[in-house]
């Protein structure tokens, strides 16, 4: 009835008018009968009725007021219901806030990284142009050799509406308090405008700007942190690589292209030697096959002109930021899935709490129903409660999501932060929060309102008089608890496996020393350290000065320090003693000075380290290389070659295996080739220090460097710090998973607790009777605990079966454990058991303290 009333069309004003006219006519008729003249009667009638306009308004108002009254009454009812059990209401809201918050934050991150990594209009059509292998589409090199940007743009005009380019680079900014190295891409003049960037201040780089004009634009972050957000920044001069440059603009915060954190953009001269990365905007009318067909036609044409090498073609791939995100696809999807499970647990919690509450109010509801409140009235009231709770929970959830997002961003490994993470802001949270809320509202309504027996007056009243409650609600609620525990088990297995992997990874023996090893790393500015001899002189000078520090016992130079890889030969074509022995996908190449092995603690199992002045091309191989290619024979004096472009190298030593490329040893599988530090080193290098005790302090190192070149930025870390950083990704995702698992556990514990309380209250008489006939308090406690444990056991078993089925998806993220890892399963089962006991202990205790006589008499 109320629904029909709400839906009933309001009477139109013409309806009201007609009714009043009718009234008027009847009155006039009566007056006429009493002897008035018709005209006089009508006039009199109009006078008596008064203004029909105001009457019409009054009629409408009477209805409007009724509707408003009803709305207020409904809202009051809902508020009263919510306030009556503040604990239940509070728990529901907190539960929802956690569930909605977790899933919203994670979905926002995943969406930003995987689907919309680039916050530019038309970013999905932004592609890097590469030369690719014509057979397998493998990317070979960026751009097309022999075509500068203008030529490339012209050659591919029917595929790309525009092609621009950039190069990697960094600059040292001096003149402020400390010298800093800034990530500073060189970009072709049209790149930023191709992205439709609108500058925050000043202007973008354009055709007027060449490397000679020394005009730069800076990032919002740099402007904020180094220039105090000064409005007069445009036109200011800064010293970059010892030359003064003029800032012509500040880019908005979200612009971080081509990588993050780009701090400063410089004009690119793409005719200067170096590797230019080309980025194009694919014409939006093109289908993928049409696009590929045109690229093929262009490639053939270019090959005929002799520009493009045979066996290659022009290809494309998503931009580096778009690729970064997809590298973490599995981890991101898995954590998002985990948060959905957390939300599911939260929803079940809220539904079962509301169920318990409506069952507790069974009598009241039945009474209302008997007094004539329609089923719909009661349902709308319940619905109102659900919607109010979901509404408040959603708002709180959005706040939780915002905070969680900030934490997620803050803790994220650089690798992730470098890929457009910054685009995740409050606005991007909203759609996910709304979606999660809608799903929550629907799920809770379905779970908690589809219990028809809650509002049948007859049964309700009879149960009110007999004191018994409805058993089916208890069973339904217990089923919900089983679901919760099952979901929890899945989340816990996932988190457990990730955590175990991270721990296993961190406890891997890297094959080199950790304690007492420090690493100083730096990147020499090209303009001051342009040639090999200058660089080498500086490096050796630094090495000697650091060796002179009191606590330092050994010092070595290396192109890069473990565990972060360094360089490696790709598709290395191995030739042993002149005979080809197949290709190795990635062969780590470690370039070091002779003291390296003693410094870092890698023992030489055979042969010696390099001599001070190597005699011809020599190499030290790892034991894995020796075992693979010489099978037990000594490789000393034999030759090893990995590229047709390079001479054969004579093996002078065999080093113990060490994990240079990272603890997971994804590179090389223990293989490594050590090369002597040459006379023309790269401008980047590390100094490794072995020391006893505390080792050198940062201040000592700074003093040494300051004495040599005060304008050099550097990093100084312990080897342990480097190892810790190297497993950043694994730590990050396992930390997220563990946080979500703990959240899920807390939520499920609340569910278990609520269920146990509800059950014991309903079974009071039965429990009292047991006590009365001689059960001990201990028996009762055990009875209650065992019941919850049985539910948890069932849920846990279901969950484990589910987890083992879906854990396969996690396999790419696991290290040193299988998805059937027994310890994880044992851990999950133990934790679940402890959780149940902890959650149910209080209600069990309370149940055992019942006073049987009072209850049985009452």
């Amino acid at each position, binding site marked *: 009835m109320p629904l029909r009333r709400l839906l009933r069309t309001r009477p139109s004003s013409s309806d009201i008018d007609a*009714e*009043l006219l009718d009234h008027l006519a*009847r009155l006039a*008729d009566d007056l006429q009968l009493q002897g008035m003249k018709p005209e006089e009667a009508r006039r009199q009638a109009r006078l008596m009725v008064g203004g029909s306009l105001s*009457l019409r308004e*009054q009629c409408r108002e*009477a*209805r409007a007021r009724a509707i408003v009254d009803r709305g207020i009454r409904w809202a009051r009812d809902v508020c009263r219901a919510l306030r009556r059990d503040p604990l239940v209401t509070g728990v529901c809201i907190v539960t929802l806030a956690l569930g909605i918050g977790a899933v919203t934050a994670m979905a926002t991150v995943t969406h930003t990284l995987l689907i919309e990594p680039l916050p530019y209009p038309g970013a999905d059509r932004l592609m890097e142009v590469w030369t690719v292998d014509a057979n397998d589409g493998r990317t070979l090199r960026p751009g097309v050799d022999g075509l500068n940007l203008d030529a490339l743009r012209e050659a591919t005009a029917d595929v790309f509406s525009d092609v621009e380019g950039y190069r990697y680079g960094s600059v040292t900014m001096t003149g402020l308090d400390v010298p800093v190295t800034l990530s500073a891409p060189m970009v072709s003049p049209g790149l930023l405008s191709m992205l439709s960037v609108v500058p925050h201040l000043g202007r973008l780089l354009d055709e007027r700007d060449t490397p000679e004009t020394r005009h730069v634009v800076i990032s919002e972050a740099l402007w904020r942190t180094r220039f105090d957000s000064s409005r007069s920044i445009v036109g200011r001069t800064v010293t970059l690589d010892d030359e003064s440059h003029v800032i012509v603009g500040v880019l908005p915060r979200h612009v971080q292209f081509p990588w993050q954190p780009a701090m400063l953009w410089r004009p690119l001269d793409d005719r200067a030697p170096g590797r230019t990365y080309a980025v194009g905007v694919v014409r939006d009318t093109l289908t993928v096959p049409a696009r590929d067909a045109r690229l093929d036609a262009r490639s053939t044409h270019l090959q005929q002109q002799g520009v493009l090498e045979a066996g290659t073609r022009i290809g494309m791939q998503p931009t580096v930021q778009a690729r970064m995100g997809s590298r973490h696809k599995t981890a991101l999807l898995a954590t998002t899935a985990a948060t959905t499970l957390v939300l599911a647990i939260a929803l079940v919690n809220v539904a079962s709490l509301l169920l318990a509450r409506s069952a507790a109010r069974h009598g009241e509801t039945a009474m209302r129903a008997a007094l004539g409140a329609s089923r719909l009235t009661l349902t709308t009231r319940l619905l109102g409660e659900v919607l109010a709770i979901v509404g408040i929970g959603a708002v709180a959830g959005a706040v939780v999501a915002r905070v969680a997002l900030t934490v997620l961003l803050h803790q994220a490994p650089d690798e992730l932060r470098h890929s457009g993470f910054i685009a995740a802001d409050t606005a991007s949270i909203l759609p996910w929060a709304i979606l999660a809320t809608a799903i929550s509202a629907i799920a809770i309504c379905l779970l908690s309102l589809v219990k028809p027996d809650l509002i049948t007056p007859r049964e309700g009243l009879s149960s009110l008089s007999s004191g018994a409650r409805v058993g089916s609600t208890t069973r339904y609620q217990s089923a919900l608890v089983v679901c919760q525990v099952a979901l929890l088990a899945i989340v816990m297995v996932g988190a457990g496996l990730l955590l175990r992997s991270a721990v296993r990874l961190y406890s891997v023996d890297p094959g080199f020393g950790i304690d007492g090893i420090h690493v100083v790393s730096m990147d020499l500015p090209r303009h001051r350290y342009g040639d090999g001899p200058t660089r080498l002189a500086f490096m050796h000078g630094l090495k000697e000065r650091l060796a002179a520090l009191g606590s330092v016992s050994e010092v070595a130079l290396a192109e890069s320090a473990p565990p972060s890889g360094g360089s490696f030969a790709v598709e290395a074509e191995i030739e042993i003693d002149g005979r080809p022995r197949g290709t190795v996908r990635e062969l780590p190449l470690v370039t070091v000075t002779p003291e390296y092995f003693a410094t870092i603690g890698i023992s030489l199992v055979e042969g010696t380290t390099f001599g001070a002045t190597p005699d011809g091309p020599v190499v030290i191989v790892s034991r894995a290389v020796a075992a693979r290619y010489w099978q037990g024979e000594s490789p000393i004096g034999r030759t090893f070659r990995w590229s047709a472009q390079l001479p054969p190298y004579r093996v002078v030593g065999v080093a113990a295996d060490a994990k240079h490329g990272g603890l997971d040893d994804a590179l090389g599988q223990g293989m490594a080739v050590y090369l002597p530090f040459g006379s023309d080193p790269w401008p980047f290098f590390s100094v490794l220090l072995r020391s006893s005790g505390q080792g050198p302090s940062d201040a000592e190192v700074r003093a040494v460097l300051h004495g040599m070149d005060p304008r050099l930025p550097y990093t100084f870390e312990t080897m342990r710090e480097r190892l810790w950083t190297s497993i950043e990704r694994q730590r990050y995702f396992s930390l997220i998973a563990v946080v979500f698992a703990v959240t899920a556990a807390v939520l499920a514990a609340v569910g278990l607790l609520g269920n146990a309380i509800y059950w014991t209250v309903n079974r009071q008489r039965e429990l009292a009777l047991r006590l009365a006939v001689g059960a001990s308090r201990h028996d009762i406690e055990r009875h209650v605990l065992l019941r919850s444990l049985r539910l948890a056991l069932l849920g846990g078993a279901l969950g484990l079966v589910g987890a083992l089925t879906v854990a396969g998806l996690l396999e790419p993220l696991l290290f040193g454990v299988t998805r059937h890892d027994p310890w994880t399963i044992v851990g999950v089962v133990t934790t679940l058991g402890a959780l149940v006991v902890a959650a149910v202990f209080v209600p069990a205790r309370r149940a055992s303290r019942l006073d049987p006589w009072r209850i049985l008499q009452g």
Partner: protein
Amino acid sequence: MPEKSDLPQGTLDLLILRVIALGPIHGYGIAQRMQQISRDVVQVQQGSLYPALHRLEDRGFVASKWRASETGRDAKFYQLTPAGRRQLEAETANWTRLAEAVGLILTHVPEESR
């Protein structure tokens, strides 16, 4: 013309329901009937009658329908719904009880004055 009396708050609705309970009737008829039965004591103004009718209809106590009346002209007829009938019973009982109580108080003669 006899003296008119103001109706106590909320009584109009009850009276309207009561009149409608006698059978389907249009607005003008309700006013006439009320005046007639109360021997001209209760004279309900259009300004109160029609808003009240709309309110009652909105609450679901009465239903309305346009149809031909005794004069042949179409009129909007009101009829009691089951909810209206229940409401009328409850309100009547309430009113009777209250009226009795009021009467008791007003006619009460203290012991000592007897």
